[in-house]
C-alpha cells in the first residue's frame, strides 16, 4: 500500500493505528480525501457542500491532540461526511431543497455533536433526496448523486450522496438516515455496507424528520468494522429525543473476527422469491450467500414471514401520513418549491384517514410481534433480500409519476429491528447486489458479527468502482 494513493483504502481501525503510531497524520488523510473529492465529485455530485476549511482545521486539531496523547476514540482524526439533513451549527443544511437553501442551523444535531466531540473530521454535507423522500430528481437546486459503478445508473436513496461517496472512496464512513430503506437502498445499489440501527439506539435530534416513528440514523461505510466503529461514537441515550432508548451501549466490535458457530439464522426465501420485479441473479446471489454463511458455522433454515405487502402497506401509510403532517403548511402554500416527485409522494398524505393510520399502527404491533417473538424468538438473525434488481438507469424513471421502488427494506422500519445491508456480489452488468442481516432489537453486535464473517469470506470488499481521476489524487 503506497503512502498516498491508497489512503482511502485504509480501514478506520488501521488509519487509527497509524495515527496513534505517528506513521500517518489526520492532515494527510484529510487532504487525500479532499483531493479525491475535487477530482471525482464533478462526475459524481455526491457533495452539496465541501467544508474544506473546517476539515483542515479539524485535522490539524486532531493531529495536535493525538501527538500529545489525547485519544478521543475510534473516529479521532478520521474524515466523515453527513447527509444534508443533519443540522450542523453555522454550516448550511438544505435537505437538498429549495425551501431550505438559506438554512444555517444554530445548533448541531446530536450525531454531529458526538462526532465532533470524538475528534472526527467533517468533509462536508452530502446529497440526499429532497427531505429524504422522492428522487431521483433533476428539478432540485443540486443534481442527484451518480452511481460510481456506472454514472448513468441510480444510487438509490434517500442517502444517495452517502452511498456514492463511500463507494467511490471519497470518504470511509458517512451518515445516512433510513425511514423505509434510505440507508440500505443506497448501500445495495452502490455496493457498500449500510447499518440501520435499532429504533432508539441513535438520537434523531437535529436530523430533519421525515416520519417520527420510522426514522433511523445510521452509517454507510465501506466495511462492517467501519460501521461498528462509527456506531460506537454515535450511539447512546439522548434524554431529549423522546424515542431514545435508555439502555447501556454494548461493544459493537466484540463479535468481529469470530466465526458463526452456534448461531441460528432464518432465511425467509419465500418472502422475496415471489416478488414482482425480482431478477434471477439476485436470488442466486442470496442463495450462495446463505450457503456461505452456513459454511462459516451457522445453522441456516428456511422460514416463512407474513406477506411483504402487509409490511409495506403498514409502513407506507405511516410514513406518508407523518411526512404530510410535517410538511402540510408548505405543501399547501408553496407547492412549486418542492421537487415534482417529493410533492407527489407527500401530497398523498392528505388522503389518509385517521382510521387508516390507526389500523396501520395496530398492524405494526402485530407484525413486530411475529418478527420478534415467532422468528427471532428462535433464531439469532434473519438473512433476506435487500433489493430485487440492480440499480436502474436514470432514464428508466417516469417523468409524470413517482417511480415504484423495489426495495425489501420497509419491514424492518416497521418493526424497528437492526438491519445491516452488505454486498453479495455483482450483476452481469457489473452493478452491486446485496442482502440484509436483521437482528433482535439492540443486538447490533450479533448482526455485525455475521456481516463481518461473511464479508471476510466472500471478499466482495476488494472490488472498487474504476473511476478515472481528472487530476492526481
Amino acid at each position: 500500500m503506497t503512502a498516498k494513493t491508497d489512503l482511502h483504502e485504509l480501514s478506520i481501525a488501521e488509519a487509527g493505528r497509524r495515527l496513534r503510531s505517528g506513521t500517518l497524520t489526520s492532515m494527510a488523510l484529510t487532504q487525500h480525501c479532499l483531493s479525491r473529492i475535487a477530482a471525482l465529485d464533478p462526475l459524481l455530485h455526491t457533495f452539496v457542500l465541501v467544508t474544506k476549511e473546517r476539515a483542515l482545521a479539524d485535522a490539524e486539531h486532531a493531529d495536535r491532540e493525538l501527538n500529545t496523547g489525547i485519544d478521543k476514540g475510534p473516529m479521532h482524526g478520521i474524515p466523515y461526511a453527513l447527509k444534508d439533513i443533519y443540522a450542523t451549527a453555522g454550516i448550511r443544511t438544505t435537505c437538498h431543497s429549495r425551501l431550505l437553501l438559506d438554512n444555517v442551523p444554530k445548533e448541531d444535531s446530536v450525531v454531529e455533536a458526538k462526532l465532533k466531540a470524538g475528534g472526527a473530521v467533517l468533509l462536508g454535507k452530502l446529497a440526499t433526496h429532497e427531505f429524504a423522500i422522492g428522487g431521483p430528481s433533476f428539478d432540485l437546486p443540486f443534481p442527484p448523486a451518480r452511481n460510481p459503478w456506472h454514472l448513468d445508473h441510480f444510487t438509490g436513496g434517500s442517502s444517495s450522496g452517502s452511498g456514492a461517496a463511500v463507494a467511490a472512496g471519497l470518504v470511509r464512513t458517512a451518515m445516512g438516515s433510513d425511514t423505509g430503506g434510505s440507508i440500505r437502498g443506497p448501500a445495495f445499489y452502490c455496493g457498500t455496507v449500510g447499518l440501520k440501527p435499532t429504533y432508539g439506539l441513535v438520537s434523531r435530534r437535529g436530523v430533519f424528520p421525515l416520519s417520527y416513528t420510522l426514522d433511523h440514523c445510521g452509517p454507510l461505510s465501506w466495511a462492517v468494522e467501519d460501521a461498528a466503529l462509527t456506531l460506537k461514537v454515535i450511539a447512546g441515550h439522548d434524554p431529549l429525543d423522546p424515542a431514545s432508548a435508555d439502555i447501556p451501549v454494548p461493544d459493537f466490535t466484540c463479535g468481529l473476527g469470530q466465526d458463526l458457530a452456534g448461531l441460528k439464522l432464518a432465511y425467509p426465501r419465500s418472502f422475496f422469491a415471489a416478488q414482482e420485479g425480482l431478477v434471477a441473479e439476485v436470488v442466486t446471489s442470496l442463495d450462495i450467500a446463505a450457503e456461505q454463511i452456513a459454511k462459516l458455522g451457522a445453522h441456516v433454515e428456511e422460514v416463512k414471514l407474513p406477506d411483504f405487502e402487509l409490511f409495506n402497506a403498514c409502513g407506507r401509510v405511516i410514513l406518508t401520513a407523518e411526512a404530510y403532517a410535517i410538511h402540510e403548511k408548505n405543501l399547501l402554500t408553496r407547492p412549486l418549491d418542492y421537487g415534482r416527485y417529493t410533492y407527489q409522494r407527500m401530497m398523498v398524505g392528505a388522503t389518509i384517514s385517521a382510521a387508516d393510520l390507526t389500523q396501520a399502527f395496530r398492524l405494526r404491533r402485530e407484525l413486530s410481534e411475529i418478527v420478534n417473538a415467532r422468528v427471532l424468538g428462535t433464531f439469532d438473525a434473519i438473512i433476506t433480500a435487500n433489493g430485487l434488481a440492480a440499480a436502474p438507469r436514470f432514464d428508466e424513471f417516469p417523468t409524470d409519476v413517482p417511480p415504484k421502488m423495489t426495495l425489501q427494506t420497509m419491514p424492518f422500519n416497521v418493526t424497528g429491528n437492526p438491519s445491516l445491508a452488505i454486498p453479495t456480489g455483482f450483476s452481469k452488468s457489473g452493478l452491486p447486489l446485496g442482502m440484509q442481516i436483521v437482528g433482535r432489537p439492540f443486538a447490533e453486535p450479533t448482526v455485525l458479527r455475521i456481516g463481518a464473517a461473511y464479508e471476510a469470506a466472500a471478499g466482495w470488499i476488494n472490488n472498487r468502482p474504476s473511476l478515472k481521476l481528472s487530476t492526481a489524487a
Partner: protein
Amino acid sequence: MSEEQDAVLEREFDMLMAKAGADIPADRKAGVLAGYRDMKRMAALLRQPRSEAAEPSNIYCLTGFARSRQS
C-alpha cells in the same frame, strides 16, 4: 379499473384535495392521483381480522413522555 371507476376515483380524490385546501398544480396531479390509487389499495390491506383489544403500537410510555416534557 374501468373508465367509470377511474372517474369515480378522480372525483373522490378532487374532493379530498379540496377538503385539505390543496390547489394541486395541473402538471403534478397525475402523480398524486396515482399515489392515491396505490394508497387505497394499501389501506385495504391494513384491515385484518382482529379484536377490539388489539392495541396499536406506539402506545404512550409515560416515563419517556415525562422526560421530554421536563427538558
